[in-house]
């Protein structure tokens, strides 16, 4: 940085990787978590709780299949409740991982290298949690496969004009690309683990997973090509998947759903909640596993800035919805706005505004952007706020629509809660396993950040 700009008040940019590391130390530090560091009691307790929550989810789903969707709070007029709220929430969370992996790669942002592995894992596990809900929330889940366009003896295809069909394509594409991207990126690291471990059976397993990676120039060339191609495929998905999910609502005629702001508003909201989840994972992980040298304050600050920006877009979305409630002159839209502010769910709408708009504005303060504790708490608030946003959109729009005689209320039942917290448990359980069995940070990509990695002519 030019000398004339340096002064005592100038703040040095936080490094992407702490100084003093070599190829050896980077590789050792990350692979040690998997290979040599024993699992602590804390890991077992955390994993145990997450596992129990997953079992609770399976119990709730089992009872659901036995009795029917009536065990939930869904009814007429609120035909969609927690299940769809949770589906959209989880899919939204997944978007940050893909943005970090794909878009930041194409934009050559090297700070992505330490967070992209576990962020992409987060995406996969979030999509897995999300994918549960469309399958189980239908009235006849044993026939949910009819939404897939397979040639069948009934000679019937699905109805492609339905946004739920577009969801099928979008989410399955997203899951496939994310899985390929994540796994492809892991191959050189699997080879590293294969080479570093001394136990034979672990060597065999990582060896099979690494597909015979030798690290030759030809392998690396093919690898870089594949990685760029997948990044190119995944980049539009960041925008398209949540746009398609937003069409579930925007294509409907329900007041409060039928609005063109939804696609950009949903995508911004997805990245907002996704980065909040990345931070909520990154901050404990770096602390517990001693990875502050790799996941530095720079990463936390950058994530905070992305959250602030997307949060402002989401705030604009709220503002324009409110404005249109008045400007459109449409009696139904006007009432939908009034109902959100004064109706039976008004407390939740006001909490939403607090959680999503007002509280995260503290991220303008540099000191809070650099404080892991503050970021952790604010991220939690944002995740709650984004869940409330989907609740307001799905439930509060449905419960009072056109005919006043059809107005009703939605009350979640214990099965709704058990399923929801169960998916959170499943997500955490998968994350715990991931941290234990796979390198949480991309080893070879971290090596590229070191000064030794520069190619000297």
């Amino acid at each position, binding site marked *: 940085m030019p000398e004339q700009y340096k002064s005592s008040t100038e703040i040095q940019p936080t490094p992407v990787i702490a100084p003093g590391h070599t190829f050896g130390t980077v590789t050792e530090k990350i692979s040690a978590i998997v290979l040599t560091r024993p699992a602590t009691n804390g890991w077992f307790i955390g994993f145990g709780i997450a596992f129990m929550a997953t079992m609770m989810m399976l119990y709730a789903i089992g009872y659901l299949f036995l009795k*029917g969707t009536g065990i939930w709070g869904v009814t007429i007029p609120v*035909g969609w409740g927690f299940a769809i709220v949770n589906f959209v929430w989880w899919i939204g969370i997944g978007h940050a991982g893909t943005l970090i992996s794909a878009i930041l790669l194409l934009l050559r942002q090297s700070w992505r290298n330490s967070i992209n592995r576990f962020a992409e894992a987060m995406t996969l596990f979030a999509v897995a949690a999300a994918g549960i809900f469309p399958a189980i929330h239908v*009235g006849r889940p044993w026939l949910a496969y009819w939404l897939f366009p397979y040639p069948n003896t009934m000679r019937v295809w699905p109805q492609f004009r339905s946004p*739920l069909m577009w969801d099928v394509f979008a989410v399955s594409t997203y899951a496939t690309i994310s899985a390929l991207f994540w796994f492809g990126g892991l191959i050189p690291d699997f080879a590293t683990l294969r080479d570093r471990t001394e136990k034979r059976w672990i060597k065999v397993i990582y060896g099979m997973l690494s597909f015979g990676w030798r690290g030759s120039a030809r392998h690396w060339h093919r690898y870089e090509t594949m990685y760029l191609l997948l990044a190119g495929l995944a980049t539009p998905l960041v925008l398209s998947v949540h746009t398609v999910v937003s069409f579930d609502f925007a294509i*409907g*005629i329900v007041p409060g759903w039928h609005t063109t702001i939804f696609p950009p508003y949903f995508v911004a909201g997805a990245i907002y909640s996704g980065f909040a989840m990345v931070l909520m994972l990154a901050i404990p992980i770096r602390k517990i596993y001693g990875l502050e040298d790799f996941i530095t304050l720079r990463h936390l600050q950058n994530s905070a800035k992305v959250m602030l920006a997307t949060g402002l877009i989401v705030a604009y979305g709220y503002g324009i919805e409110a404005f249109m409630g008045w400007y459109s002159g449409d009696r139904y839209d006007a009432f939908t706005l009034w109902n959100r502010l*004064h109706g039976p769910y008004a407390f939740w709408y006001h909490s939403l505004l607090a959680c999503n708009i007002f509280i995260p504005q503290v991220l303008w303060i540099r000191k809070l952007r650099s404080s892991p504790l503050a970021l952790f708490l604010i991220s939690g608030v944002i995740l709650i706020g984004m869940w409330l946003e989907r609740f307001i959109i799905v439930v509060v729009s449905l419960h009072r629509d056109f*005919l*006043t*005689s059809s107005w009703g209320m939605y009350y979640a039942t214990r099965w709704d809660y058990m399923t929801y917290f169960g998916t959170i448990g499943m997500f955490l359980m998968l994350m715990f396993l991931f941290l234990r069995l796979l390198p949480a940070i991309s080893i070879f990509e971290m090596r590229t950040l070191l000064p030794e990695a520069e190619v000297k002519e």
Partner: protein
Amino acid sequence: MASRLGLETKDVVELELDGKKAKGAIWIQAGHPDHSVTITLGYGRTRAGRVGTGQGFDAYAFRTTAHLWTASGLQIRKTGDIYELASTQGMQSMETPNGATRPLVREATLEEYKKNPNFAHEEEPEVPREFTLYPNFLYEEQKYAWGMAIDLNKCVGCNNCILACQSENNIAVVGHEQTLLGRHMHWIRIDVYYEGDRDNPKAYFQPVPCMQCENAPCEVVCPVGATSHTTEGLNDMVYNRCVGTRYCSNNCPYKVRRFNFLLFQDWETLQYKMMRNPDVSVRSRGVMEKCTYCVQRISERRIDTERASVIEGKEIKIGDELQTACQQSCPADAIIFGNVNDPNSAVSKWKAQSRNYSLLGELNTRPRTTYLAEVKNPNPELES
């Protein structure tokens, strides 16, 4: 009177008359005379099957030969309990809490009607039929185009149509707990709207079956194509294709679609086979159902007329003899059903009236079920 006593709907009170007591929940009825309570006979049964036993209280306790229908001297005491009364209707007013009114039931006095016969269409923006990206299907060229008109002047809210529909179409009774959640399965319902002063309100009744919209919002959102449109204008519900996403119900602005959230039908009791209509399926859990314009009757009649046409060698068409169950049972003849492609059918004549309007027509759903707006001729001396 209720506010004087500090009571609200669902409060449980204890009634005492000449030493006899009973406890029951109250329902505050708009327009009910002051200083009085209406109690209904027929509840509190002890042997009435799965649904009927133990509902309400036995009002015969208060009924004596001296006081068969009315009595005075009743005492009411608040007990502090609450009983969740199950109502099948959300709100009973066309005025929303933010002060706006929705023109769901349209009405005018005779004077207003004479001055402006088109009063029922004032609010509607005319959406031209060409206002669509898709080519319009030519329903008018088909042999039949089924439609229904409901005359709101005639409907007194007796609920006969609901019962007839339930019997005709094997509709399940879901019970108190499920109705509290809003899961009652009525394919036709009667919406009641009160307007005006609470002590002297106007009451409007509006039977709402499936509108069989030509531009049905439910059809486009079903991912498996379980609901589609026939050439005769019926919105068909294909139970065996439905996987139960409930998007169609969410998108229906009239909320006429009912979902089997649980297994509401009794598949065990063999005697129900005698009760049920063999022409109509019995739906299991996880499928959506709704009014079909009694499609089983349409099909039966079509088969009869086609057979008769062959036998007699000339074309015999279905005429006004075909009635839906609700139409057949209505004591006021408020519902009429028939072929709108036949200008001489009763339904065509009703729909040609200027009072005819579509509920929520501004959504461009083009419903085949339309309403004839109310025209009242109130005695000016009674009004004041």
